[in-house]
């Protein structure tokens, strides 16, 4: 019985692992193919099934009509994601701390309602906001700019930061800030001197979620930028809709998902330590 | 029901223990009789939890054997050991009613529904939980939840022992007293062996027929509360059992006897002893304070009087700067600064050589 269970478990884990890596392996092998290797049907192993070519990779760094420049979109993506994540994290952390420690009242609106207002933004389908965003940015002259996207992404990421950090702060005993205040700190001083230095795990988790959702957004980048500013997901989709150079496409895809795939290592560490459970209501 | 024997049982969390220090539990030999109550007592990190985990089967001991009624259960999994356990924090099946909670261990063992009904009813009566049988278990108070945990052990007729792992920690102080009494009553009525793990000596004393005192993974003394109190085997037991701790007064070797300036109690110097430290141990409760007379074994000046309600603790300074404490009910009639006569029964003054009781 135990043996059967163990075998089933191993098969399941193995099967899932293959499912997970399959698209990556396929992309990797495809990225070394040329037009011949692709049109002759599915092949897998370089040198055995097909003659590898590096054109998929080199084309990404060539400018001009033949090349697809990946560096520009990569930098744009990084800048937009990092700035938006950072701003969201700062504003979100402050708000979450306030909501977890003070009582706010505005007519019938209480703390829980404000928290809900923040978090409920995640329910908002992007499409509901896309058109007004478009018009608003146009009004501001921020269409097709990094600034415009950052603004939109803050709206996208702020709820995530507030959500994770509210739960994190509710796990830090209130007595800690009270003690800081009796020791002579102002409420703001207590936050910066005592709470913030003890919030690293929460900040890391919140920051990672911001990066993930920021870096991986496609829709807003797609509707609010055109030529001047181009993020990775948009460039790859435009590549997809033109002629289909699968080799470049695959190499491009691998490069664009690589940075965040590395984040998985950090996420795993926090998850195993149990520091993450606070981040889930 | 079973007799539990710990045979040279020890445990080290290291794969290759080098010396004494590497043992979380140094090998011990103990026999626990069926139907009695026992307490494992000691400060945190003393090895009592390791011992409990070995008995419950959570930890496999690195050394020795564990026998239930002569049967070696050292490597048998928890589920087959016929033990039950109540934890520090109440553990209940939160989705079930009280009745379903109590029935669960029997259901798992495939007992017939009619028998289950009967057993659950019996145990519920025993625990005074009849009225709550159909309530969701999670709605009960902490002490009632602890009773449910206990009940899940009691419903099983084959249960050898119930382990209680600091079960009173999260109970309101007012309820502690009641729950402790309830546990004793259940032990008397059912005859199930109970083993309590605690750091609270008064809890251990009031609960157990026999107490196992531990420190640093080493068994210090095992015996009835009376024995531990009146004849502590070493200075640690003297300190740990009783509040305030036993007074320890240093003795000097004088012409073949052991004596001190503080008290006129002498002990014959034990022959062939090469001990470095001779001490007289006297319980604060065994010191009586009287008006000065010639028969006193000593005199002392009262330095401090602490009121503890019915009784009080009086701190006295004797000759040669020896400070002792005495427990008395007459503290309200005394005042700081006065000098009192001290009487101690010769039998209550115990001799310790290097911290060990000289027999």
């Amino acid at each position, binding site marked *: 019985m135990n043996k059967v269970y163990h075998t089933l478990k191993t098969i399941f884990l193995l099967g899932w692992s293959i499912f997970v890596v399959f698209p990556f392996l396929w992309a990797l092998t495809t990225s070394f193919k040329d037009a011949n290797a692709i049109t002759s049907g599915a092949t897998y192993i370089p040198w055995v099934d097909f003659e590898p070519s590096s054109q998929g990779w080199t084309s990404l760094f060539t400018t001009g009509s033949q090349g697809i420049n990946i560096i520009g979109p990569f930098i744009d993506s990084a800048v937009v994601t990092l700035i938006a994540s950072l701003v969201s994290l700062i504003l979100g952390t402050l708000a979450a701390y306030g909501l977890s420690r003070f009582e706010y009242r505005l007519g019938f609106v209480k703390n829980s309602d404000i928290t809900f207002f923040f978090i409920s933004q995640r329910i908002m389908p992007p499409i509901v906001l896309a058109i007004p965003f478009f018009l608003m940015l146009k009004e501001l002259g921020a269409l097709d700019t990094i600034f415009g996207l950052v603004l939109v992404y803050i709206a996208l990421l702020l709820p995530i930061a507030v959500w994770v950090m509210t739960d994190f702060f509710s796990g830090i*005993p209130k*007595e*800690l800030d*009270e*003690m*800081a*205040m*009796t*020791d*002579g*700190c*102002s409420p703001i*001083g207590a936050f910066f001197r*005592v709470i913030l*230095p*003890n919030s690293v795990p929460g900040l890391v988790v919140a920051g990672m979620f911001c990066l993930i959702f920021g870096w991986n957004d496609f829709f807003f980048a797609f509707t609010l930028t055109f030529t001047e500013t181009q993020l990775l997901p948009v460039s790859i989709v435009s590549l997809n809709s033109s002629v289909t150079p699968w080799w470049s496409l695959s190499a491009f895809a691998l490069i664009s998902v690589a940075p965040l795939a590395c984040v998985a290592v950090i996420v795993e560490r926090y998850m195993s330590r149990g520091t993450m459970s606070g981040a889930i209501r | 029901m079973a007799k539990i024997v710990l045979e040279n049982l020890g445990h080290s969390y290291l794969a290759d223990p080098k010396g004494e220090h590497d043992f979380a539990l140094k090998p011990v030999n103990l026999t626990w009789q069926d139907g009695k109550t026992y307490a494992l007592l000691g*400060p*945190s990190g003393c090895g009592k939890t390791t011992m409990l985990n070995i008995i419950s089967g959570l930890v496999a001991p690195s050394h020795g054997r564990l026998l239930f009624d002569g049967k070696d259960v050292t490597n048998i999994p928890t589920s087959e050991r016929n033990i039950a356990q109540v934890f520090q924090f109440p553990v209940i099946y939160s989705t079930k009613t009280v009745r379903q909670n109590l029935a669960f261990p029997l259901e798992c063992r495939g007992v017939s529904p009619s028998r289950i009904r009967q057993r659950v009813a019996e145990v519920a009566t025993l625990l005074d939980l009849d009225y709550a049988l159909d309530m969701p278990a999670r709605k009960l108070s902490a002490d009632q939840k602890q009773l449910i945990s206990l009940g899940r052990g009691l419903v099983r007729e084959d249960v050898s022992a119930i382990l209680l792992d600091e079960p009173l920690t999260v109970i*309101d*102080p*007012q309820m502690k*007293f009641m729950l*402790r*009494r309830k546990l*004793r*009553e259940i032990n*008397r009525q059912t005859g199930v062996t109970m083993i309590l793990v605690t*750091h*609270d*000596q*008064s809890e251990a*004393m*009031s*609960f157990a027929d026999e107490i196992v005192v531990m420190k640093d993974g080493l068994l210090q003394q095992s015996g009835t*509360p*009376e024995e531990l*109190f*009146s004849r502590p085997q070493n200075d640690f037991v003297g*300190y*740990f059992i*009783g*509040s*305030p*701790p036993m007074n320890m007064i240093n003795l000097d070797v004088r012409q073949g006897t052991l004596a001190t300036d503080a008290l006129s109690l002498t002990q014959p110097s034990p022959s062939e002893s090469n001990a470095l430290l001779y001490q007289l141990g006297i*319980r*604060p*409760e*065994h010191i009586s304070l009287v008006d000065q007379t010639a028969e006193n074994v000593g005199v002392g000046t009262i330095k401090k009087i*602490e*009121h*503890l*309600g*019915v009784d009080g*603790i009086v701190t006295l300074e004797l000759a040669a700067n020896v400070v002792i404490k005495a*427990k008395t*009910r007459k503290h*309200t009639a005394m005042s700081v600064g006065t000098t009192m006569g001290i009487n101690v029964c010769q039998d209550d003054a115990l001799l310790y050589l290097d911290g060990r009781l000289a027999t």
Partner: protein
Amino acid sequence: MLQIDHLTTADAKVTLDDVSFVFEAGKIYTILGRTGAGKTELLRALMGLNPLTVGTVKLDEEDITERPIRARNMSLVYQQFINYPHLSVLDNVAFPLRRQGKDKAEAHALAGQMLTTVGLGEFLQRRPAQLSGGQQQRVALARAMVKQSRILMLDEPLANLDYKLREQLREEFPRLVADNVESVILYTTTEPREAMELGNTMIVMHDGRVIASGAPADLFAHPPTKDTASVISDPPISFISGFVRDNCLYFSEGHLAPSEGLLLPADGPVTIALRPDAIEPDGAFNAQIGLSEFSGSQTIIHLDFDFGRAIMMVDGIEAFTAGNDISVSIRSEHIMLFAPDGGNITLRNNQNG
């Protein structure tokens, strides 16, 4: 001098109900009460952590009710061992000094001294998490004391410690706070023995109110109400509802209670309180032994009388087998009488008795 008038709170689970008191500097006040009696709430209200609906807090005649927490010159030690996790032990204790504007060297010197006093001189560079529970609480105590604040509050500081550690710290406590002669020291606890041992003055709280206060020994000998008697008795005091008829005291019909030396009230129902030391073996009353517990040098025996249950405490170790019958005497000089509404009505011929 700290004076509080009519402190009343709403909102919180346990509310304060019109609490007034005057505290003097240099004394230790122990606040005794069961869980939920309002002890913690009182400290928090003094601190400014719980908003008041009514009431004023005055420190040396100056009204500080509205003063922000950081300017109140108070310190608090919590029941949970709360320290700054990210700071070393030394920096923990130096933290309040730095906030007072002392330079780093001076703050460290003072903090180091204080840590030596509490016995942690060798752990200055450790993080609180690397210390045992007792040591962590010593850090918290050092941090609270180093400021020499006017009001030092300790909220059940020993409740989460092992029995023996508790005993040890209780013993050391008076020495540790000896330097804080300028401070009002407030110490809450649920344990009557601790409250009596440590307090110059004991304040008994119940249901958000102060129900009694005074020197521990006096309060214990003459509790003004039934609630007070029950809160400050450990082992518990036993109450039996009896009555007075024709200047005789009865436990129940047919069971006359001893009353020599007592001035009895008018005929009617009365609550008779028996302290564990009021009952002694051998005498005219028969009871069944319900349970016998051994505690230190005493044996605590639960007795079932025909007219109710009571607890007897006997010095020494004696075997009392549960289930057996026993005869006991009840000493009238340890009897207290309470009106059915809870007020003390004990009057004695000889008040010293």
